[in-house]
């Protein structure tokens, strides 16, 4: 009955790196705080009031010089240690901010108080996230209401999940098993019930799992149906009379915008273009697209995004390398 774990499960290479960082910090912190406590206790006892300890001091000029040197020493030493530790932790963070190419995308929608998860193949799950071991997985996350945060202690990562935009989180789990998923950003009444399970499976078991359950169509197929139902093809279709950007192969490209800047056509850009079409208008096109704000759920938006992603360009089909790593987490 009495469980007293001191370290959480470790299910990725990153988790091991973060633990190493922790242990080094514990070492530095332990040595420094122990030294301070020992010195305080030692001084307090040796120089207690009335003790016979020698309290002879150097002449004031000598003292002043020595004190200044001491002060500089214990300003510069921590500074150097801090810079080293900052650099190490920042490097780990920055390296981990860029999703490696070829990551498996999974969509996560947070809402009070559950996690809705959809795999590109169309398999959906609630409060559970099944992933294959050994392959990078990228979560594309958004919220339908307040801010949540997707936290997997065994992987040592979390990311806030915001309404109105995508945030991403990627990892490569390397240990099969069940691990905790917690919502770590306070989100209202049942915040502590917004918990789930990360299930890391062998790749072949995962492939079988993806096929099971009530899977009728992939996200891209569902997106294609939505594309037709909302009349998107009326403008974006190949034979359309309206001058609208063609969507084939647009995903991952660098798009020149009307204001002279550029945007990468990633999931964020596609989503924003559906909801806020006047925000980043592609150069050479009139800002005539209506907003679909309020007409699509987050799940439907994700399906449309998957559909656009699935549209290969006529000339360069399947060009993975054009996709640049995510600049932001």
């Amino acid at each position: 009955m009495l469980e007293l774990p001191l370290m959480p499960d470790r299910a990725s290479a990153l988790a091991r790196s973060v633990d190493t960082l922790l242990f080094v910090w514990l070492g530095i912190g332990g040595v420094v705080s122990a030294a301070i406590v020992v010195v305080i206790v030692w001084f307090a006892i040796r120089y207690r009031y009335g003790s016979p300890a020698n309290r002879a001091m150097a002449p004031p000029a000598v003292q002043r010089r020595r004190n200044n040197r001491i002060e500089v020493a214990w300003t510069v030493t921590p500074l150097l240690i801090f810079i080293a530790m900052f650099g190490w932790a920042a490097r780990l963070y920055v390296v981990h901010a860029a999703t490696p190419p070829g990551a498996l995308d999974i969509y996560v929608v947070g809402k009070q108080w559950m996690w809705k998860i959809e795999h590109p193949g169309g398999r959906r799950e609630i409060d559970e996230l099944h992933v294959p071991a050994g392959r990078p997985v990228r979560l594309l996350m958004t919220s339908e209401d307040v801010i949540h945060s997707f936290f997997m202690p065994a992987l040592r990562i979390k990311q806030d999940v915001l309404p109105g935009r995508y945030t991403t989180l990627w990892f490569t789990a390397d240990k099969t098993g069940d691990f905790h998923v917690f919502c770590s950003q306070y989100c209202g009444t049942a915040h502590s019930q917004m918990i789930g399970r990360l299930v890391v499976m062998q790749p072949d078991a995962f492939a079988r799992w993806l096929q099971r359950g009530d899977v009728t169509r992939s996200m891209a197929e569902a997106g294609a149906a939505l594309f037709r139902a909302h009349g998107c093809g009326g403008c974006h279709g190949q034979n359309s009379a309206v001058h609208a950007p063609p969507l084939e192969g647009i995903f991952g490209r660098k798009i020149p915008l009307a204001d002279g800047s550029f945007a990468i056509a990633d999931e964020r850009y596609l989503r924003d273009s559906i909801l806020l079409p006047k925000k980043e208008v592609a150069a050479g096109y009139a800002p005539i697209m209506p907003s679909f704000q309020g007409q699509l759920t987050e799940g439907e938006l994700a399906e449309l995004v998957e559909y656009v992603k699935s549209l290969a360009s006529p000339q360069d089909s399947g060009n993975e390398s054009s996709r640049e790593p995510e600049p932001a987490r």
Partner: protein
Amino acid sequence: MSPASPPVRDSYLDAGYTLWSWLSTHDHKRIGILFAFSITALFFIGGAAATIIRLELLTPAGDLVSEQTYNKLFTMHGVIMIWFFLIPSIPSTLGNFLLPLMIGARDLAFPRLNLASWYLYVGGALFTIGALVAGGVDTGWTFYTPFSTMFSNTHVIAAAAGVFIVGFSSILTGINFIVTIHTMRAPGLTWFRLPLFVWALYATSLIFVLATPVLAMTLLLIALERWFGIGIFDPALGGDPLLFQHLFWFYSHPAVYVMILPAMGVVSEIVACYARKPIFNYKTMAMAILAIAVVGFLVWGHHMFVSGQSVYAGIVFSILSFIVAIPSAIKVFNWTATLYKAHVMFHAPMLYALGFVGLFTLGGITGLFLASLALDVHLHDTYFVVAHFHYIMVGGAVMAFLGGIHFWWPKITGRMYSDGWARFAAILVFFGFNLTFFPQFLLGYLGMPRRYHAYAPEFQVLNVLSSAGASILAAGYLLPLVYLLWSLRRGAVAPANPWEAKGLEWSTQSPPPKENFRQTPIVTEAPYAYAPPIEVAK
């Protein structure tokens, strides 16, 4: 200990015995006492909320109170402890009482403004307690949007209004202190002869004046979005939820230094007195206080490493957070060095001060863990953060507050308390505190998120330890209430300077007369001019 009446009947306490004489006073000493009464009352309300929280967390299941009640409890605990206890604690009680005494002035520059700050505090407290009585607030003390503006259906506006009003109390106190320190120092009291407590109050006042208006605006924006649906923070209305976090932490991170800087000042006074030595490198200590106040304005983004702000912002805020720790580290080293070749005495205030140094060190070092980007991604919003800021705010600020109350109690009340009981309470608080909050570091690394009403069973043992510690801590906090109040009737009459301390406040009678000094003191020496070391070496 003979029950004797004070020999002098001409102190500030004798300036009037009616309730009205207190409620209409312009005397900074009486206003300090008014603040002391009010913040103590609020501390025990906030403490009661914490007690129920710790009881609930004894078991993994949420079985003592409902989840909604739990959310309201931790919200009220945070709101009350931060805005109605910690922020005003040292500045408005000890600061108010001591600042004019320490600089040889008759009062603060604006005595009526000072009384107004107390009334504003009471007004704010009534709003917030009103929100509590009317059914509570469930947003957490951080009021994160869009939850607080569009989703919570509790009394957000009433609670925010209380915080808004109490903010003006802080601003007025800040202005008053700044003007007083600039214009009312006794002849000879140059800036580098000021006690470090005065330096700390000065830096704190700058933060009050510069940061608090941002909080007021932020709360006003919350009200605008909640009442009128004006899209500021909610993306559904075209707003940006991260804007709120930037505005909120731009105030709330400097507010952390509002809580800790005065505590550092108090500790410097106590350590110098009971070590019988000047503080090691006094000027660096004063500059470190200012450095913390200034750099403290530039680190708010370290609360947002996983919020979705850019990687580059994360890097900048991370390095700045490391830099702000340097002056704090210097202060810890200098307090320690002050004990070298000292004559250390172990009165209760010294035990609190030494306890402060230890706990603040631990709180500071764990703050560096959190400033480390990759580590914070794991630790953010877990119990590790809860443990870290309680080490700073309770292990730091509250320990120093208690130390300061004990140190200046004879000056304030004219009575001596029992040093034995006081030392016992200090030790109780120290051990109770560590048992309460140390296990929370482990819980945090294990992954237990904060603000959880129910938790996974493997977290139980550490939670039970924490709750056990909390009961010891509670005893440690209740004990001083008993022996300090007892001393008012039964304590020995205090001499003007029972600790033979330096500083102008000890040169006048205990308790001081209404006008503080019979004649204006003239300062001729450096601060902390304790008896010089015995002999000079060759």
